[in-house]
């Protein structure tokens, strides 16, 4: 029988009296949730802090940068020119003070004002979030469909089909977004004219960008899923289902798939963050609005509040996505409990 390893599970040796150690289910669920929230807050705080200090390391005088951004000209500035900016953004305060102010802002959901757009960062991000999240979710959904169909069709079908199947996985996973995007654009928008070149946010416009993100992701997930799929196919419970008279396709869809997709579910949470990276490139290729382009523009022009805002937002997305993944995981595999 399997050994219960001593440090995999959170084991507290020599816990106190048994009466106290039998909390109600509700209470332990509450504790788990509280732990989740605490760790989420830590992640958010950490991400925002890293971003804040990373930006402090950026070269150049901040007031100059702000002025240059506003005027769209790259040059040195006289102290007189800079004075109002310094006053406006409190740049003469110590870094610590700025950091504390920044944290205070974070707590009340105030990320400050964009240097460039004069607008609250929350407004800028609020506008762009939907486009990117839609893109990400559509991409993840497409990649799931691609992945499930492909793996179900090709996994565990003998060496030759398997080689083709996993070969395609590897190729797909290795395709760089920028290249794939350009090729898709070239073929399907410029060549065949099936899709608009600059789709904007409409449904037709999302196909190519989403595919660009989805194909490598599908390949990536398929690699993990395929391994699991083939492992699951060999599992006795699968043979046992066959012994009951179940057909191959049914076995694959009803039993094997559910086991095989677990790693892909985990990957999906991570993928939401990764597609954000991809979005930077894809949004540029397909001229789409979104967090990715905001980020590139902001980093490019050292629009500190926006960058920090994006980072924190991404961390939020990451935390939420992981929570969702955990929940999905427990739905698919009730054996695991939130931990």
């Amino acid at each position, binding site marked *: 029988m399997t050994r219960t390893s001593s440090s995999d599970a959170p084991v507290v040796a020599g816990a106190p009296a048994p009466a106290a150690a039998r909390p109600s289910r509700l209470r332990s669920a509450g504790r788990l949730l509280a732990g989740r929230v605490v760790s989420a807050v830590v992640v958010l705080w950490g991400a925002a802090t890293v971003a804040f200090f990373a930006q402090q390391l*950026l*070269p*150049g*005088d901040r007031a*100059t*940068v702000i002025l*240059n*951004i*506003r*005027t*769209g*000209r*790259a*040059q*040195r*500035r*006289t102290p007189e020119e800079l004075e109002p900016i310094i006053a406006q953004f409190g740049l003469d305060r110590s870094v610590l003070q700025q950091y504390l102010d920044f944290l205070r802002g974070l707590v009340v959901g105030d990320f400050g004002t964009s240097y*460039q*757009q*004069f*607008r609250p960062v929350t407004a*800028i991000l609020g*506008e*762009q979030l939907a*486009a990117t999240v839609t893109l990400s979710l559509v991409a993840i959904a497409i990649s799931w469909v691609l992945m499930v169909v492909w793996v179900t069709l090709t996994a565990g079908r003998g060496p030759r089909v398997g080689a083709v199947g996993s070969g395609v996985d590897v190729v797909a996973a290795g395709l760089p977004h920028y290249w794939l995007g350009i090729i898709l*654009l070239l073929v399907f*928008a*410029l060549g065949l*004219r099936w899709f*608009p*070149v*600059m789709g*904007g*946010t409409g449904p037709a416009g999302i196909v190519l960008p989403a595919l660009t993100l989805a194909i490598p992701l599908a390949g990536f997930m398929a690699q993990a899923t395929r391994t699991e799929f083939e492992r699951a196919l060999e599992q006795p419970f699968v043979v046992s289902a066959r012994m009951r008279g179940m057909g191959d396709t049914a076995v694959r869809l009803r039993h094997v798939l559910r086991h095989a997709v677990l790693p892909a579910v985990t990957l999906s949470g991570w993928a939401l963050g990764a597609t954000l990276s991809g979005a930077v490139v894809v*949004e*540029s*290729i*397909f*001229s*789409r*609005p*979104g967090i990715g*382009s*905001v980020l590139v*523009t902001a*980093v*490019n*022009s*050292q629009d500190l509040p926006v960058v920090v805002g994006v980072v924190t937002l991404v961390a939020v997305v990451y935390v939420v996505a992981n929570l969702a993944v955990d929940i999905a995981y427990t739905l698919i595999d009730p054996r695991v409990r939130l931990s």
Partner: protein
Amino acid sequence: AAGSASSSSGERVEGGTIVYAHQQEPPCVFGGWIEQAYLSYQVLDNLVSLDEDGEVVPWLAEEWSASEDGLTWTFTLQEGVQFTDGTPVDAEAIAYNFDYWVAGGNSTAQVWLQDYYESANAVDERTVEIHLKAPYPRLADNLTQGYFGIQSQHALETRSDEENCAAPIGSGAFTVEHWTRGQNITLVRNDEYTSWPANAEHTGPAYVERIDWRFVPDGTTRVAALQSGEVDAVYDVPAVQWQSVEDGGFELHRYITPGRPQQLSFDTKEGPFTDQLVRQAFAYSLDREEIVGTIGHGVIPWEGNGGVSQATPGYSEKAAGWYSYDPDRANELLDEAGWTERNSDGVRLKDGEPLKVVLPYGAGSILNADGAAILQGVKEQASEVGFDVELVPVPQSELFAGAYSTPEERDFEVGYWTSVTAGILYINWRPSTEEAPNYNNGAFYDDPELAAIILEANSTADVEAQNALYAKAQEYIAERALAIGLYDRLSTLAVDPSLRGVWQEHAQGGPTFYDAHFVQ
């Protein structure tokens, strides 16, 4: 789209939405970037407009004149013009706008005006006086640029920065309807429009209902969108696609931007280029015509003049032709300058030091891909005579942070500056002093003699005489090889045949949609 040209009967269609793809999204509709000038040009009216022949013609101002001493300009406004917020376009508002620009409300307007502007005051409802510190006879010409769009004083005073940034209130043919950041700005027709410029093709409100001003950074995508009919007009057609767009039956507009061309200014304060011989050698080592001709596919004109572009009044052919491709001469000059040895890579040495020069450039911002390719040609050709040019693409963030802005950090400055007149020379070459630093003087060339020529030209009322002085300044620059031209910056526009009446305004080449209309 190719077929639509022949099938159209030419009958004007009322209304409609123009979908226009522009390359870069500015942070605000109004401001000191050229992108902003293009945009605000649809929304704001200027005092005056520049017509096809380079003549200043009435717009908000019916007439204008400068005083005898050139120090006071009087503008008389059209009657009954209103801003779209209902307040009148009166002398008060104009004076307010001048003060607003100079105070930093528009950085480019500020640079133009700050050394000359004294004050502005409303004489009566329709008359405004501008007082200058020194005569500036080309003031009206300059005021035709988009940076000088007039905004509602009431809006500037009562609305937030954010609101004025996103949707400035002017009296123009269109108003800002909505800005979807990262995607587009929609402009909607001002039905009450009364203040069209004198060089417009029609009167009354604009023909089209709306402009969907999209931001599409990638040139290939823009052109493809035009070809597939997704957009009606695009800005900045990549040179390599020019021919195919033309073959597709699209209407092409090309505007050579007056002002400073894309040029190389040499660092005259530090490094090898402090030696005039070396600068000249560098100039001789390049076959700029060949480089630009190939990379620019015959669309981008090459430019020899380092001071102003060929589209600028007062352009000097002589200055442009000063240096031709002459590697032998370049070698001689370098030998003469003491760079006699060469190392194994063929780089010249002097006292053991290699002839290495750093050429930073704003990749993707100041120079587009074509420009970057041209610089690679420069690097390669200069290496023939023994220069080791280090190309440093600098991201915008670093530029904004002031990277490569000191003489120690770089040996060249590359870039352009749009301007209606050769007055740009003043901005670029005014000596930098302790009390009045001039960071726009990229050559770090503080020469009172050159400054004097330019200053004199600035204040010379007679156009001929003024141009002669400006030409003299250009030749002065050429002779000393302070800057050499590379190519002229272009504003290009490709328009679907179903859309007529789009023209490039003559101050900066931005698209003008006031007269635009669809045809059947």
